[in-house]
Every structure is written in C-alpha cells, then in structure tokens.
C-alpha cells in the first residue's frame, strides 16, 4: 500500500515492548492473586518472545 512497505516490520518491533510489558505484568498479577507463582509461569515469557520473533520474520519475508 502506497509504498510504505517498511511499516509492518517496524510495527512489529514497536509493538514488541508493550506486549512484553503486558505479559510480565500479567504473570506478576497471577503470582500475587492467582494460584500460580512466577517461578512456574516464567516460561510463558519465552513463548511470547518466540511468537513475536516468528511474527516479525513472517511479516518481513512476506513484504
């Protein structure tokens, strides 16, 4: 669209920080008020980072 083909990549990059932040917040919230402690839920962070990396790659190779 309109030659702004750099946009999708930078959108994924820009969105990475906020999503990571939300994930960390959610895990801590579950640790404090939910049944699972942070020491059991931390792998979710790796999964989220991995998924974001994959999506970055997918969008950049698609363009």
């Amino acid at each position: 669209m309109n030659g702004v083909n750099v946009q999708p990549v930078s959108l994924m990059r820009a969105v990475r920080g906020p999503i990571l932040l939300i994930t960390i917040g959610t895990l801590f919230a579950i640790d404090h008020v939910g049944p699972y402690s942070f020491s059991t839920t931390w792998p979710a962070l790796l999964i989220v980072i991995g998924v974001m990396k994959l999506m970055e790659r997918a969008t950049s190779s698609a363009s």
Partner: protein
Amino acid sequence: MRPRSIVAPLLLIAVGTLFLVRNLWPEIPMFEMFARYWPFLLIIWGSARLLEVLIWHFTGRPLPVQGVSGGEWIVIVFLCVFGSMSFWGSNAYSRWPNSRISVRGLEIFGERFEFPVNAEQSTGKASRVVLDLGRGNVTIVGADGDKIKVTGHKTIQAYNQTDADRGDKEAPVEIVPMGDQIVIRTNQEKIDKNRRASADLEIAIPRNMSFEGRGRYGDFDVRDIAGNVEINSENSGVRLQNIGGGAKIELRRSDIVRAVSVKGNVDIKGRGQDIELEGIAGQVTVNGSYSGELTFRNVAKPLRFESSNTEVRVEQTTGLVKIALGNISAENVQGPVKVRTKVADVQLRDFSQTAEVQLERGDIEIRPSATHGRIDAKTDNGSVDLVVAPGARFDLTATTKRGEINNDFGAPLKVEAEGRNSTLRGSTGGPAIHLETQRGEITVRRAGQSETAPPRGVLPKKLPEPPAPPVPAPVQQ
C-alpha cells in the same frame, strides 16, 4: 517529528495522586494496595503503549523504533524489584497460599464426593481433646456425659467414584487416645494432592475438657466448654462462646475472631481482619496486624493491643474500646489508658485515672470523667479537643506550635501567645493536663457547651469573650 508518548505524563499524574491520597486520607492502606496490585500498573502501562503504537500506525504517523524505550525499562525493572519486595514484606503474601482463590482453582478439576462421618469414643481419664483438622469447618460443643461424638461429612475431590472411595479409605476420621489426650485426626495429609479432602464436622465433647484445634483452612466454632481452648490455624474464622477457661488463638490469616463470655485470659496472635471480644473476665492480649475493626466490650482485666506501630492499653473496659485503621476510640473505661500510634484519630471518653496519647498525625478528642488523673496528649499534626465536666478540677497546659487556641472554657484559663507559638494555661486545682500539637488547633470547652444548639441563655453572655484571644495570636510579620 516522532509523536511523543502520553505514558510519562500519565505516570506523573498517577504518582502525584497516590501521594495526595496518602496525605489526605491516611487511613486508606496505600502501601498494602500497592504491594498487592502493582502488577496491574505494568499491564496498564503496556496496554497504553500498545494502544498508542497501534493508533500511530493506523493514522500513518511514524513509529518509534522501540515501543518501550530503554529508560522506561529501567523504571519498570525498579518497579518490579520494589513491588516484589513490598509484596513479600507485606502480609498480603501470607494471605494467598491457602486462599479461596487457589481452592477454587483446584476445584475445577474433578468432582466432589461426600462421605458421612460418624464416630464415638469414651474419654476415660483424658482431660484434653486435640483435633487435627486440616481443611474444613468444625463445631465443638460441650455436652453432658463422658463421650466424644463426631458427626458430619467428609468431601473428597476426585475424578471418579473409585478414586474418591480410595481417598475415603486412606483418610479415615480417627479418635485415638494418647496418654491424657484424645486425638481426633482426619488424616487428610495421607492422600495425594489430586484428591483434595475436607471435613465438615460437629464434635460433642464432655463439658469439662480442654480443646486444642489445629487447622489449615476452615472455621472453628467452639461453645459451652469449661476448659481451655487453643486454636492454631493458617486461615480460619474463630468463634468462641461461653468458655470456662482461657483462650489462645494463633492464626496466620482470618476474617473474624469472635469471643463472647470467656472466664480466663484471651490471647490472640497473628494476622487477620476483624476481632470482636465481649464479656471477658480475664486479661486480653492481642498481638499482630489486623486490617478490619477490633471491638472490645466489657473486659474486666487489662486489655493490651500491640501491632507494629500501634499500642493500646486499657486497665478495665466497662464500656467499649474500638480500634480500626485510622481511628481509635475508648468509651467508659478505667485508666491508666495509653494510646500510641502513628496515624489515627483518637477519642477517649469517660475514663478515670491517667491517660496518655501520642500520635504522629491525627486529631485527639478527650473527655475525661470527673475522677481523672494526669493526662498527656501529644500529636505532631492534628487538632486537640478537650471537653471537661463543669466544675472539674485540673491544671492545664496546652501548647500549639502553629495554630489557634480556642478557649471556650473561659477563666481561669488564659492564652499566652509568643510568635506562632501559643499556650493556654490555667488551673482549677487538680491533676495536670498536658496537651501539645506541633501543627493544629486546640480547643478547650465545658461539657454540654456548643455541642448542640446554644444551650440556655448563659452562652450569649459569654460569647463576646472567645473572639478576643485569636486576634493577637497570629502576629503578622
């Protein structure tokens, strides 16, 4: 130019609001709220950033390289470290391990199977019953005869009937005599965690025995027992009624501890919410942190409350002593009375003997009865209000470092001003009363005066007097 984020100003507004609320309404437990809910700050922060980035993207504005900048990450790391520390440090932590939420979480798995419980045993020479409950609610009632009767039901969480039946066999409710004790066990620890067990029991024991209860989660209800009662639980509501001996209660968390008519001493330790004691013939000692309201009515012997920053002592309570977050009051009590805390409004009414109040912030209201002793009341920030009975004898010295003095009592009290300092002094020949505030108003008046509508025709005659002192007090420089 890249668009600038709205998160930084929002954060500033939030921090400002937080501190303002803390200053204006000190009774709101901001620290505890922060300790428990700080992760939601991260979620809100992240969501705000995400929303921003998306809006910028779809309005075609240039995007920042990173959604969350390096500086922000540093703040976030500090927030995480500080938040975790305050969470572990606060009592919020101890509330969760066996809380309702985790129980509910596990109840999702499997089904509940119920099994009736029926057991009976004669007590022989034993003088004490020990209950090892684990999870569940229990009612202990003193009865005639010399038999222990256990009735009720056991609930086992399992995927199917055979699993549940096995759990039922593995965790039988037993009554075992052990020396001069009789132990009632539910054996819940013997079955694995996948089949959670709990027991709701009603136990009748001979009236003259003592009772000791140990539990993890669930309420204790003890009635009509002549011996001592001792309860130790991780999370429990405790209700005692008509106990002939003393009571010793130690809880890591509780929603309520209520004791009505106990002949011996009552000793409560740990953390919880509300405490209600009424008609206690022995001493009362409460030690720990409680987030709700503590009421004490009719305590014949000394009452002592101690938490990390509050200490209250009353010699004898014929009326009511109430301790809540941000407010401590005592009415119709025998002194010596002592209240020491950081932030709270304090009201002492109708007390005899001496009184001592020491606060960092909060208003003090004192209405001694005619037979009071020495009174010392000190606050760093707040007003002091003294209401004396007409014709009371006292020797008053009241000082405010910064604030007004209202002498509604009239002669022989006199205001002496000295810069911002003012002192009200005067004596009718009686015990000393010392009032002191660093910053705040001091008012001294007679009981019945200016409380309701102007009483009788006496007041108008005296009215011209009070406006006079405040005029010289604020010396303008």
